[in-house]
């Protein structure tokens, strides 16, 4: 059974004033996607293709104009209170800019405690233990709980954000360009961390990136978003011998070479 499915999702935005409805821009048109439990769906597209809008719709931060988002077979708009709560705790996110995704006045411990505070009633000691466990799980140290965001490096702060995302043992995490701002060495370590967490916790990922190299490493399936629609889906576990949509081949052709091609 699919964990999350998007059927016929469409979204447009108003450009200009509220009372002038003639200037609408279609950001997403008839998007269909599905994610199986424990799987990793990679979503690639150029800037402006609609990836961020799609991630906000999947996270329930925005309502689509048309179409349905089904979590565990139930549409988000038709959920009971209980089901809504279940969806909320099971669908988490890690954003691209770690510094912008945490309150600068919160310590790392407070950042990670926020989801726990909302969904679990834990005693002080229990919560502290859980936070320490989470910090260690993502490769940090329990003493980091008292540090403020500006005291962390980019990679370390992203680990804090990952700890916050896994705090409630979610079934799905949306990774919205989560490794795009990281230096190469740190990026490869975070990718390794995400892969190992997926293995041990069975979390499904919706991995959004403009870098196809990262997606090849992480994803089971690749969906290509082009001008608001999914134009191509590739099963990365099988090797298929066919021609692909030009949007995808264009993206692959633009990939930087691994080593210098012409010597000097």
């Amino acid at each position, binding site marked *: 059974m699919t964990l999350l499915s998007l059927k016929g999702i469409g979204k447009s935005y108003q450009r200009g004033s509220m009372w002038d409805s003639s200037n609408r821009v279609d950001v997403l048109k008839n998007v269909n996607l599905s994610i199986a439990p424990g799987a990793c769906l990679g979503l690639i597209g*150029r*800037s402006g293709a609609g990836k961020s809008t799609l991630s906000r719709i999947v996270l329930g931060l925005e309502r689509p104009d048309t179409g349905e988002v089904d979590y565990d077979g139930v549409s988000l708009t038709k959920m009971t209170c209980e089901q809504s709560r279940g969806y909320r705790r099971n669908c988490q996110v890690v954003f691209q800019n770690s510094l912008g995704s945490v309150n600068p006045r919160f310590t790392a411990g407070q950042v990670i405690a926020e989801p726990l505070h909302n969904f679990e009633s834990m005693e002080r000691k229990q919560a502290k233990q859980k936070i320490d466990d989470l910090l260690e799980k993502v490769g940090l140290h329990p003493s980091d709980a008292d540090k403020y965001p500006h005291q962390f490096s980019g990679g370390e702060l992203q680990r804090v954000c990952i700890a916050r995302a896994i705090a409630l043992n979610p079934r799905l995490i949306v990774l919205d360009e989560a490794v795009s701002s990281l230096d*190469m060495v740190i990026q490869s370590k975070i990718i390794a961390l995400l892969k190992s967490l997926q293995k041990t916790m069975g979390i499904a990922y919706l991995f959004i990136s*403009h870098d196809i190299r990262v997606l090849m*490493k992480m994803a089971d399936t690749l969906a290509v978003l082009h001008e608001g629609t999914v134009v191509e889906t590739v099963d990365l576990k099988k090797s298929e011998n066919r021609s692909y949509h030009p949007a995808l081949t264009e993206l692959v052709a633009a990939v930087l070479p691994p080593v*210098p091609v012409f010597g000097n």
Partner: protein
Amino acid sequence: MKDAHLLEVDGLSLCLKTGQQERQVVDNLSFTLQANRILGLIGESGCGKSLSCLAVMRLLPKAIRQTGGTIQFDGQSIDALAFSRMRTIRGRSLAMIMQNPMSCFDAVFTVGEHFKETLASHPDKDSRSNEERIHGSLHAVGFNDPQSILGLYPFQMSGGMLQRAMVALALMMNVKLLIADEPTTDLDVIAQAKVLGLLETIRDTHGMAILLVTHDLGVIARLADDVAVMQEGQIIETGIAAEIFETSRHPYTRELINAHLELYDHRLNTIR
């Protein structure tokens, strides 16, 4: 015979002053750059590569001081040059493009006005009219309809377009050295490919020297002739790009190269 160095940085040291404390951010940096070549300066965030560029441009923030070394550009020592003399060199022979192209343009002026202002700041004996020069350089960077670009405001253009416009400014002034500080980090892969291709063209057809700063080895692999690897304010290795990739034994360089090569999956080749 080796070309004379266009840019020679020798023993550059920079210090950051915060409150009462001083911290060395760049330590004894030395590298050279010749015309017609691209030097890639690679290192992770915070290693001091951007500051080194600003030092060459003499645009360091107030809190950073140069505490040692010399910078020679086109046979002239520029690190101690008078500010007014440096201003004539900057923009005319030396130009810089940066990571966030939007921030390099004044939002209330059109692109055309930026070009006109640059020409007005550096009067020279070029026989062509201003209009010819502007159109020529915009065309050279890939804008097929230069006139339409001139009337646009920066917010109406994409990041990739703005970056190409910045390169056009440098081309128009016929600069000898272009410093590109993470020029494609904020662009998507396709815009990145266009901008990097453009930089390659101006090296080949205009003989410009380019100092290309990046944290992505893919950019180095694509464009750089020579490489300097920076770590924590120091250059730990220099050499020809192809040789560094193949034969470097320095542990930090190898760590970077391995992390970079790890990303490449053979399945990429099947999607053509």
